[in-house]
């Protein structure tokens, strides 16, 4: 039987690939947007850059001199524009409502999605209100400094760790080693503000929301941060030296104390990530305006909690 689905499939229009001009034009628009962000927020609130991927053979983003110059020019341009806007508008126009406050509209109805979203945001608001700018800077710096330190002590061994195919033993050793490095960096991030983070994770763990997507996210977020808050300290530099001393043995790496610790930590983090599940797509991609449940600033801050690997 030739059904309607079959007819629909056969009616699928053949379209030509995008023209070179369309592709270049789109790439230019994206590059412009990337350059803007690059110049305004080079470090953002994230931890260190893509360490996990680097060791799997990705390499750091390569920036040829020409591109470096382009970035620099774009940076200067954007800084000039921002400075100009500041002078024109003056301080009275700067910043609307603080990020940790709710919009100025009337309080949402009890039990509504909006009310639940604000409950979900609550612990983050408390957290960000409780840390000083100095501490915020320290939180941002901690994983980067840890990452730099670990990268330096692992550098002599990276070539060998990176040498295997995905299914090889050395690649599996490499993965466990990365888990250890990631774990130490996350521990460094959460240590800076551990009392404040414990308050936040306790609140999220106890939150009861009717909406299952938000509820799952709340629990998952608490679990993920707690994984680093409650983990025993790991020393990634010591671990890699031990791996080398044992001839990069997969059996030894898997059975070692630090290896088991790092593997368990990563599994917990992943499990917590799954509990967060569909929250962001649900919030962002719905056709019914759910993205307005949280402000952009709130969303950004929710994805940038120390210890969070979103």
């Amino acid at each position, binding site marked *: 039987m030739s*059904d*309607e*689905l079959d*007819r*629909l*499939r*056969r*009616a*699928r*229009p*053949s*379209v*030509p*690939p*995008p*023209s070179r001009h*369309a592709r270049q034009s*789109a*790439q230019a*628009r*994206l*590059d412009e*947007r*990337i350059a803007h*962000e*690059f110049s305004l927020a080079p470090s*953002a609130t*994230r931890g*260190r*850059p*893509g360490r*996990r*991927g680097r060791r*799997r*053979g*990705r390499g*750091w*983003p*390569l*920036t*040829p001199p020409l*591109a470096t110059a382009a970035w620099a020019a774009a940076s200067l341009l954007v800084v000039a524009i921002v400075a100009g806007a500041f002078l024109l508008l003056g301080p009275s126009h700067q910043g609307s409502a603080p990020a940790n406050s709710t919009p100025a509209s009337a309080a949402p109805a009890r039990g509504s999605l909006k009310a639940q979203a604000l409950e979900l945001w609550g612990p983050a608001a408390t957290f960000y209100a409780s840390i000083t700018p100095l501490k915020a800077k320290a939180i941002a710096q901690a994983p980067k400094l840890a990452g730099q330190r670990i990268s330096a002590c692992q550098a002599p061994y990276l070539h060998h760790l990176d040498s295997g195919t*995905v299914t090889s033993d050395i690649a599996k050793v490499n993965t466990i080693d990365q888990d250890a490095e990631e774990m130490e960096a996350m521990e460094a991030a959460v240590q800076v503000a551990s009392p404040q983070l414990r308050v936040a994770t306790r609140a999220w763990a106890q939150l009861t929301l009717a909406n299952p997507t938000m509820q799952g996210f709340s629990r998952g977020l608490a679990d993920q941060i707690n994984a680093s808050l409650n983990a025993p300290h790991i020393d990634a530099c010591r671990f890699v030296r031990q791996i080398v001393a044992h001839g990069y043995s997969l059996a030894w790496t898997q059975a070692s104390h630090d290896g088991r610790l790092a593997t368990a930590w990563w599994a917990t983090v992943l499990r917590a*990530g*799954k509990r967060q599940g*569909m929250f*962001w*797509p*649900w*919030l*962002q*991609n*719905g*056709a019914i305006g*759910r993205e307005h449940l949280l402000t952009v600033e709130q*969303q950004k801050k929710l*994805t*940038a909690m120390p210890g969070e*690997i*979103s």
Partner: protein
Amino acid sequence: MDGVGLLMPVRNDVTDASLIAESLSSPQSFSAIFDRHFAVIHGYLARRVGAAAADDLAAETFVIAFERRPTFSTSAGSARPWLFGIATNLLRNQWRADRRADLAVMALTTTERERTATRDSGVDAHEVLAAVAALDPDQRDALLLYAWEGLSYEEIADALGVAVGTVRSRISRGRGRLREMLEAPETPPIIARDEPGESS
């Protein structure tokens, strides 16, 4: 190396999720997502609104994706359903913004489609596409992502931000409606239905 940006080496061994996570601290990493998916997203949009409008919408899709990348769920793996979702929302927003233009585009592109599809497959594309245009927008989005773009129910659910059961229901209802229209003696007019809740 065609299509690979100046800034990035080819990185076929890295998942979309890893690239997007990395782009949070190294924004230029997002260029690899563009390289991987631009042609597919452009093709989807071109089938929906024609090549000319697709150029702009596809570019906009990736700018929005870049801005929203902190919210991408890294457990998702591939970014393709997420990008389809953004592109679909853009289609909706454009149609809401200018319904008259929508009707014109719809009629124009249907003519293009009719010509192409008829030549390619010999089926009565005009009749099928006219019926598709008359579907409820929710059903149309789900059905086209399934039948034309080859997304699974789960991927469509990711893309549209709805439950898998909802996708199943939309596709099933859309197919039913399509069958009714295709079996009806008269071809429906080539007019896209209004968005739900929108006054005509």
